[in-house]
């Protein structure tokens, strides 16, 4: 077994690639109170955040399929993004305003649900699946709103943890209900 490549070589390769405009997307991994998150970003914003349980290969392949195959890893290039995410999750900041690129969401209504959620449901509030569906323009599509949240490519930043069942409880979450409760508690939401 040969040792892995030195970190400085990888970081310097990624920096050269970004400087030359060769990177279609940049990703990194960041340790947070919710576990190690994978964060991928393209020219328009954060395109994917993955929980530790998600297969990295598949997640990066999704990103490559959308933005192009020249996907590189760099801590330094994403320092602004991961810094904001860490500060929010560690409770040092109550704002998380990062540009997102939701083009991994292909279905128009699912996209509308996530756009509405991102724009209209602030920290400290929760909304039911039915109410979110109504706000996105289809009052009877609570189920579709649920699947939009379940498949949210940019969790935390697009706050699908703030969407809860009308019957009570926190409901399900792509990152597991424990993480959802943790996020809602951090935000002081009434659940």
């Amino acid at each position, binding site marked *: 077994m*040969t040792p*892995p*490549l*030195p970190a400085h070589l990888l970081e310097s*390769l990624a920096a050269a690639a970004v400087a030359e405009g*060769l990177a279609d997307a940049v990703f990194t991994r960041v340790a947070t109170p919710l576990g190690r998150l994978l964060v991928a970003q393209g020219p328009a914003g954060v395109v994917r955040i993955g929980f530790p349980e998600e297969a990295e290969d598949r997640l990066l392949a999704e990103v490559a399929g959308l933005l*192009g*195959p*020249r996907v590189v*890893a760099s801590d330094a290039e994403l320092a602004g993004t991961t810094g904001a995410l860490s500060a929010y999750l560690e409770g040092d900041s109550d704002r998380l305003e990062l540009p997102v690129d939701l083009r991994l969401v292909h279905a128009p209504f699912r996209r509308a649900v996530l756009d509405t959620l991102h724009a209209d449901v602030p920290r400290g509030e929760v909304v039911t699946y039915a109410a979110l569906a109504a706000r996105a323009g289809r009052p009877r599509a609570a189920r579709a709103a649920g699947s939009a949240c379940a498949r949210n490519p940019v969790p935390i930043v697009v706050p699908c943890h703030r969407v809860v069942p009308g019957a009570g409880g926190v409901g399900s979450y792509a990152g597991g209900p424990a993480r959802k409760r943790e996020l809602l508690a951090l935000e002081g939401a009434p659940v």
Partner: protein
Amino acid sequence: MTAVALPPFWTLVERHGDELLVHARRMAGPGNAEDVLQEALLRALRAYPRLRDSGHLRAWLYRITTTTAIDHHRARRREVPMDDVPAGTVDPEYDDGGFEALIGPLPDGTRAALHLRFVEDLDYDAIAERLDCSPAAARQRVSTAVRTLRQRLTP
């Protein structure tokens, strides 16, 4: 968007980077290996979206690392004494047999070992079968061939 589904580039770097560094070390020496590998991977990244075939990516990276090491040797010399190596055949941007042109002038056995390993991307078991020898002997022949190639390129 690319015509073929290429894996995310960094997946290749994480999967093959360590062995490519070993290869760069053999080709260019320990002091130059990291510079050579970084340049090789940048060249690969520049060419990556134009690749038409997602097979043999590992062999492709080996070839680019080899040609980058060769260019490194050339750049460190005032003139190129290797009359038998055609200039301009080692453009890594195109997978058009530049490496084969480079190894063409080598003795048959040396050339065969390099071809099976870095063009056909065979493992040592498969090379052993083709050369009708043991896997250990196959490994030895490839290793000797790499050394021969490097010696030819070193002043």
